[in-house]
């Protein structure tokens, strides 16, 4: 395969970053977009999984769960903040 997985990972990251705070993608949405983009290079879903793993292991993206599983930029959710503040008091 001719594609550099780091490049694919970078594209995936951009895709998620672009819609941050507006819309969420499922990992499958991102994979489908990449397979389409790198169609000529023959990128497979397996490659996409490997590229996603680069992003997750480096913590540039995180898996989240809210009414289904998603990939998003890391952030602290409201409920966790409230719990932390309560712990400080």
């Amino acid at each position, binding site marked *: 395969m001719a594609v550099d997985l780091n490049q694919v990972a970078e594209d995936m990251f951009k895709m998620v970053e672009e819609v941050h705070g507006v819309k969420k993608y499922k*990992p*499958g949405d991102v*994979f489908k977009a990449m397979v389409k983009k790198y169609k000529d290079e023959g990128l497979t879903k397996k490659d996409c999984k490997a590229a*996603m793993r680069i992003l997750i*292991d480096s913590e540039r993206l995180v*898996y*989240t*769960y809210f009414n*289904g599983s998603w990939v998003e930029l890391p952030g602290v959710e409201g409920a966790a903040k409230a719990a932390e503040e*309560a712990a400080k008091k």
Partner: protein
Amino acid sequence: MSDTPMIDELEKGPWPSFVREIRRAGEQSATARDLINILELSYKDKKTHWKHGGVVGVRGYGAGVIGRYVDMPEQFPGVAHFHTVRVNQTSGFVYSTKGLGEIMDIWDKRGSGMTNLHGSTGDMVLLGTNSDELDPIFTDISQKGWDLGGSGSDLRTPSCCIGPARCEYATIDTLAITRELTNYYQDELHRPAFPYKFKIKVAGCPNDCVASVARADLSIIGTWKDDIKIDQAEVDNYVAGGGIDIMKEVVMLCPTQCIDFDGKKMEIDNSNCVRCMHCINKMTKALSVGDEKGATILLGAKAPIVEGAMLASVIVPFMELEEPFDNLKELIEAFWEVWDEDGKNKERIGEFMERMGKGEFVEEVGRILEENDSEVKLVSDVDMVFHPRENPYIFYDEYLEEVSDE
């Protein structure tokens, strides 16, 4: 008066009581004590005080931890965080006391000490811990050889009946299948990439002790192809013993009425036997499963969440299953590919199959298997019919065309 009058009601009577159990855990755990308090408040307010925590997890994994917070952390600090950790169950739920002890030690130290095993989802479910403890828990259990289970839109930890380890009815090695699938599909288990959850349960025979037909997206149920084995001498013993009315309790209850019994000799018309296990369960010594062993593969069972409950329906009537189960893996991956491509968020494979139409689903899976040079062939078969059609006035164009072509 007690602070928790409503909860106290649930301790009364001779029955098992989760309240009693949580109170016992509360002797050591502030989390367990606050759990009781918040529950009382929920009963009083008639609303939940739990909030989802969608981001918590361990580094690298997208599954295995289910985040929960309480919406009144100041009043209930013990349950300010109350995350659940799922740990892979063993095949057939066979544990050593030592192994369980290690998990419980870790959980007493880093969690609430409260557990739930095993519910429908499977896994050892460890209830109630803080975000800060998650990575240390992961490290601790990993060092003892355990791993986290599935959660979210991914493969859930496969589970099975005890099968050949203890049960003579088993026609497939449920334990080996479960272990192999769990290890082989690590990525699918830990890194959610499906439209929704996917559960696999493996039963050694049609008795289906894991209730896979009702609880798993993919049910693998042992069966046999040839004839039920009859030991006539043992039939004679049952007749002589008189402990069972064979006519009334066995022959008349055969769902397809395919047993012939004249008071002495027993014969079975195996072409009409639907492998329901009834006669074998009743006359264990005289009757046993055949020699050509394999499994039926079913898809689509689920409990009511987004849509109503569904039972599984047959996709492959008979399949031999031998290690390393390549045929099964190829089939499973083809199911996933079709579902992954067009499944909507939170659409279980059973609902997806119904929306797409089973005929088309089968064709599409068959096409992918062929494309991947799989030995497995998927073709429509009368055994796949879940339910005969109720309305004879609906016609399917493609089948009409086939007729007019003749």
